[in-house]
């Protein structure tokens, strides 16, 4: 996906929220949606099962309007975290400009976080992206749970964040850390605009 198109004066960024099942990806998008002013509220498309698990993906278009003469849009997606939706995750990742990896801080979910991160890297590589250079931020969600149930931040970061990318503690259900993560990934994606090769 082209990030900036000079001929049509458009900037479009596709950001995907990735992570294991029930880590809080959809909750991130729901919080962002809840904060949108009415005149910018498009439709958040969410396909969930009867048990509220994301079946296919969530899609939230963010129309930021005209910025410096460019019509600017962010497209936020989530992937279904469950292992058996691998094909859907690959599909949603196509043309991605940046990834927010939403990790579940619960200690018992550490293995799932690692597995999901490996899955992300494999899928990016399969789509021809270099996983080492793809804009990425880590979000350690559910920090509001009792300390006895969650992995300490330092340990999570050591186990998951081997690239040393920006990382944010969050409790997405109350909005904590949600916009910090979005702002950070947006900044990383937009940083690519400074190289003319990023033109569409």
């Amino acid at each position: 996906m082209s990030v900036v198109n000079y001929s049509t004066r458009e900037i479009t960024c596709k950001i995907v929220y990735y992570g294991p099942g029930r880590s809080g990806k959809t909750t991130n998008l729901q919080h962002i949606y809840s904060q949108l002013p009415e005149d910018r509220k498009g439709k958040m498309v969410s396909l969930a099962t009867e048990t509220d698990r994301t079946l296919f993906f969530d899609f939230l278009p963010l129309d930021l309007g005209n910025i410096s003469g460019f019509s600017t849009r962010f497209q936020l997606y989530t992937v279904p975290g469950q292992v058996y939706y691998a094909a859907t995750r690959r599909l949603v990742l196509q043309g991605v400009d940046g990834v927010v990896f939403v990790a579940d801080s619960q200690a018992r979910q550490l293995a799932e976080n690692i597995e999901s991160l490996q899955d992300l890297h494999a899928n990016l590589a399969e789509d021809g992206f270099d996983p080492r250079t793809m804009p990425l931020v880590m979000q350690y969600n559910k920090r509001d749970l009792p300390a006895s149930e969650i992995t300490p931040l330092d340990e999570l970061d050591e186990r998951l964040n081997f690239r040393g990318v920006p990382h944010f503690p969050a409790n997405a259900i109350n909005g904590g850390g949600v916009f910090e993560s979005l702002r950070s990934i947006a900044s990383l994606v937009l940083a690519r605009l400074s190289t003319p090769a990023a033109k569409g």
Partner: protein
Amino acid sequence: MTPGEKEPDEGTEFADFMADISNEISERVGSLDAALPAPAPPVARKTAKTPATSESGMILDWSNVVDRMIEEML
């Protein structure tokens, strides 16, 4: 950084986000505009010379005529 504990006012977070992103885009677009090569000046179109003729219409400058014929064939 610590995750926010209370629900912020509706729209405030988005407004802050918009302000940050607008600044970022303005800077990036400005720097990219400066980095892009300046558009090439328009190239003046070559016009074929009119062959020199005598008053009676006799062609005097054959080399020009041949050049023009070749140009038009190409």
